[in-house]
């Protein structure tokens, strides 16, 4: 499943692995059921230089996708199901930062 995100021009979010320990990473988490999360793959981060930082930061900007691989547990009943997740992110532009936010993500699936 690809989760597509788009940021407003001029803004970035920290990647899933920011270099600075104080920066808040982008993090997607899913509920433990009905599907099992096998792997979450973040895009390759961009190393961008900003006026406020002496060294490049590991960020995502523009449009990007986060891919999640799910698997259906053996006991799951066929039919429609709903996965819920949370995306934690913190955005900045070249001069200011916005507070961290957590967005709800829902995924409708049909188990066949």
């Amino acid at each position, binding site marked *: *499943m690809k*989760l*597509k*995100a*788009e*940021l*407003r021009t001029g*803004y970035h*979010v920290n990647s899933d692995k920011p270099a*600075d320990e*104080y*920066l*808040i990473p982008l993090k997607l988490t899913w509920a433990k059921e009905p*599907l099992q999360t096998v792997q979450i793959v973040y895009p390759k981060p961009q190393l961008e230089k*900003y*006026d*406020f*930082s002496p060294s490049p*930061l590991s960020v995502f900007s523009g449009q990007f996708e986060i891919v999640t691989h*799910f*698997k*259906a547990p053996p006991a*799951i009943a*066929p039919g*429609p199901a709903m996965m819920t997740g949370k*995306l934690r*992110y*913190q*955005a*900045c*532009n*070249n*001069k*200011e*930062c*916005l*507070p*961290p*936010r957590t*967005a*709800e*993500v*829902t*995924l*409708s*699936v*049909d*188990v*066949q």
Partner: protein
Amino acid sequence: MPKRIAVAAVCFAAAGLVWTACSNGVTVRAAVKAEKDRKPAPEFALKDADGKTVHLADYKGKVVLLDFWATWCAPCKVEIPWFMEFEQQLKDRGFAVVGVAMDEDGWSVVKPYLQEMKINYRILMGTEQVGAIYGGVESLPTTFLIDRQGKIASVHIGLDRGKEDFKNDIVRLLDAPRADFRDPARGLFAFLTGAR
């Protein structure tokens, strides 16, 4: 046999939220306002790193640089060394820097940063309520310069001013005649002695 999963729909609120949040990111360029246009800085009571309750009123008569910041805010960290320098250079003239940390995780993340940076001015732990009475503080850094009368002389959102601009504004406020020097009796005394 493995079950097949067909993705029916993805509802992704995050991108919209980013857009919404980002639309609040307005950079304001502001210099020191004329005295008649200044409004009183809202009073607050916040805890410092030692657990002591600090009120804005504790700084009555001083020029205060009130800086809303967070450890996760990289632009905020550009200004912190400036503010440390201002505190050191100007504290004897009636100036104080007060940092208000807006970290959700509280002192557990802020205290290590204070020690790492050896911050020489007082840091308080912010609350949503205090952020709200100061206009929401949607973006960080947000910095208020408060005059000796406790009124907001300027507001700076984001890195909109350089170090020297900040310092000039502070010195201007420090050099402004104090309110208690401008009462009618004082003016009369100055007139009679020719000390104008």
